[in-house]
């Protein structure tokens, strides 16, 4: 029994919060609020997934918040120059290139992930400010289709939530059943052993940061899609939220241990705390305190394993 509780600890925290939220606020468990909750948290969910992959290899990616801002600004600017589809793809390629740069520095030049991505975080944030000259940019009307990504629904379900779930599903299958997923987990467990097994540790790490860059750029596009504005100062501290979600999901920052499902739950747990406190008119300052406390509780809970 005790083993079962510990095995599903993240799920239990999630369900407890769900029950508490439904009880304290009647407006919590309404279709509109749940849609809203998912829509708000879809971008951070994608970012957290990228973060999970990086953390599984024993690394960290601090540049995600900057990439989200950069993607938004870049898309808004491109909307005046090229067609929607071209802008969309160019931004994704941009995210991939930024991620690949981190990956190159970490994997092939052996720079500590914290330092490499710290540098990228500063550079990319700076680029976002340079491109936008420091001011928010409204997306051009040709490209207003982006709003569909952020606010549209299919059969009442937010498009962004559908994308989120599909990508999480793909990641789940990849980590569990695909050779590449096995490489990722193995690298985090023991890099040297993996090297001796004839697997390229460098390639694995490089790809993981690249994928994180892609997912983060997609999250950036979703964020623009919610407001129709590319903002250079958005996403500050996002990396910490993503790390928090991954850690609440039971991952080890040392690598080799972590779960896609639990990371999604971690994102939703953090999202629900924000959501329910908004519904109850708790100030944003107080929300930060409570979020911090939840992280401590979740991690202490897992420590007892």
């Amino acid at each position, binding site marked *: 029994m005790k083993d079962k509780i510990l095995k599903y600890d993240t799920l239990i925290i999630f369900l407890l919060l769900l029950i508490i939220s439904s009880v304290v606020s009647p407006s919590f468990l309404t279709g509109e609020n749940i849609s809203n909750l998912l829509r708000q948290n879809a971008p951070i969910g994608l970012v957290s997934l990228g973060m999970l992959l990086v953390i599984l290899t024993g690394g960290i990616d601090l540049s995600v918040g900057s990439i989200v801002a950069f993607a938004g600004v870049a898309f808004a600017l491109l909307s005046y120059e090229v067609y929607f589809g071209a802008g969309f793809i160019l931004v994704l390629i941009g995210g991939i290139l930024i991620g690949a740069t981190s990956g190159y520095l970490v994997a092939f030049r052996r720079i500590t992930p914290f330092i490499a991505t710290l540098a990228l975080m500063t550079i990319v944030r700076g680029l976002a400010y340079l491109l936008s000259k420091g001011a928010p940019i409204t997306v051009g009307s040709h490209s207003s289709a982006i709003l569909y990504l952020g606010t549209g629904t299919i059969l009442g379900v937010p498009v962004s939530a559908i994308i989120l779930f599909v990508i999480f599903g793909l990641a789940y299958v990849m980590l569990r*059943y*695909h*050779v*590449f997923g*096995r490489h990722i*987990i*193995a690298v985090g*467990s*023991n890099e*040297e*052993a*993996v*090297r*001796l*097994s*004839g*697997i*390229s540790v460098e390639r694995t790490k490089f790809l993981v940061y690249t994928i994180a860059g892609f997912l983060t750029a997609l999250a950036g596009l979703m964020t623009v899609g919610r407001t129709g504005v590319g903002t250079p100062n958005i996403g500050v501290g996002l990396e910490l939220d993503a790390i928090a979600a991954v850690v609440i999901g039971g991952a080890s920052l040392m690598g*080799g*241990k972590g779960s896609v499902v639990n990371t999604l739950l971690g994102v939703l747990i953090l999202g629900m705390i924000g959501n329910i406190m908004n519904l109850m008119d708790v100030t944003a300052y107080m929300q930060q305190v409570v979020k911090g406390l939840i992280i401590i509780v979740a991690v202490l809970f897992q420590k007892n394993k």
Partner: protein
Amino acid sequence: MLQLENITKSFGGVKALRGVTLDVRAGEIHALLGENGAGKSTLMKVISGAHQPDSGSIVMNGETIVHNDPHTAQRHGISIIYQEFSLVPGLSVAENIYLGKNTSKWMQWQKINQQASGLIQSLGFEIDVTRQVSALSVAEQQVVEIAKALTTDVRLLILDEPSAVLGTQEVQKLFSLLRNLRDNGVAIIYISHHLDELQTLSDRITVLKDGKTVATIQTGTADKDQLVNLMVGRELSQMYPPKPATRLFDEQIEISDLASKNASTPLSFAVRRGEILGIGGLVGAGRTEALENLFGLHGKVGTRISTGCYTYQPSSPRKAIQQGWGMVPEDRKRYGGLLSLSIAQNISIANLAQVSNRWGFIDPRKEEQVTRTLIDRLQVKLGAKDDPLSSLSGGNQQKVILAKWLNRDLKVLLIDEPTRGVDVGARAGIYRIIQDLADQGVYVLMVSSDMEELMGLSDRILVLRDGRLQGVLERADFTEENILKLAIAST
């Protein structure tokens, strides 16, 4: 000075100790012998106060200890040195020795360094105490560890497998140090798998088996076979598998220009198919480096390998694996195993292509099937099949790491210290696996610091010193003296 009477200790349903009686006298070296899982570590933790016994009595210096904890144990002068050192790598020798023992708030460097230096000298060693511990050899670290223990008023010193990481010469130095301490009235409990060592070093030997004391004997009253018999109920002569009567294969691999530690003198030698080529020498002779270079771990370093049909230059592990080479490294925890991953995942990692389809998706049933076959073949003892590798004993971990290579079409096996940290019972199993591989036509190169193992398992022994090839011994010439003569510099 220390009497344990009928100590028992259970963890959950597992009885680790079922009645241990041990009597350690001041001024003796008391060896503790037993297979892994016999309860040695648990017993040590009971003595040092890390665990509470469920029943039984502990008497130290005539005082019955009702509740033992690390603090009480320390007060009674008990100090323990674990296999994994507790030194801080980034601090100097002197800082490590006096860590946590400063009486004044400010560091009095000169005084601390002088004291530390004096202490190390009194142990018969020369180590610059201002050097960082990370720059020391393992043997030197061991000395620092002992020096650290001696800064307290130690009356009982416990050492857990201290010689596992040391070369022959260093072991001799350690022994004279321990004898010195003994002659000054310190009681020493010495845990080891090496029967030879125990017989030269100890005064009395206590054998543990399945959590119980089997016997305490005066050293010298039982020979090796009898000791092994007490430990496992088996004769030593059954330890090494028999060699085939005739050579089974004719081919050989020529290895030339194998870069060694000493770059000016690359190694060249041949390995015969179906033989186990032992590589002997002292720690630091370049044995491990030789294996690593053969496997391409340090990139292309000019080594040429030629068989009858092709030549090949090692450049990366991946290339080596494609050529049918496999390597079992020396340090399982650091290089060999994916400790947090399951046994199946550890076995399939070197050959994921075999258990996945062309799009790279792994078939869990296939993976399980492959694993099951190998586990049965190697007789790995495991709990649940999804348990992580870390849940297995050292011997079974080693079998899993071997299994990973058997999962491929293995042509050459490089194996470094095949049974380090593996108990006697499991050793025989590993030796048989290696011999079987050789009999099936695998070229085996084995590095070992364990003389008995080296001589018991090898068909020929190649001895290195300072990265140079000193000679090759045929099986008829295997004696410890012959190997040491080549391994130690003759001036």
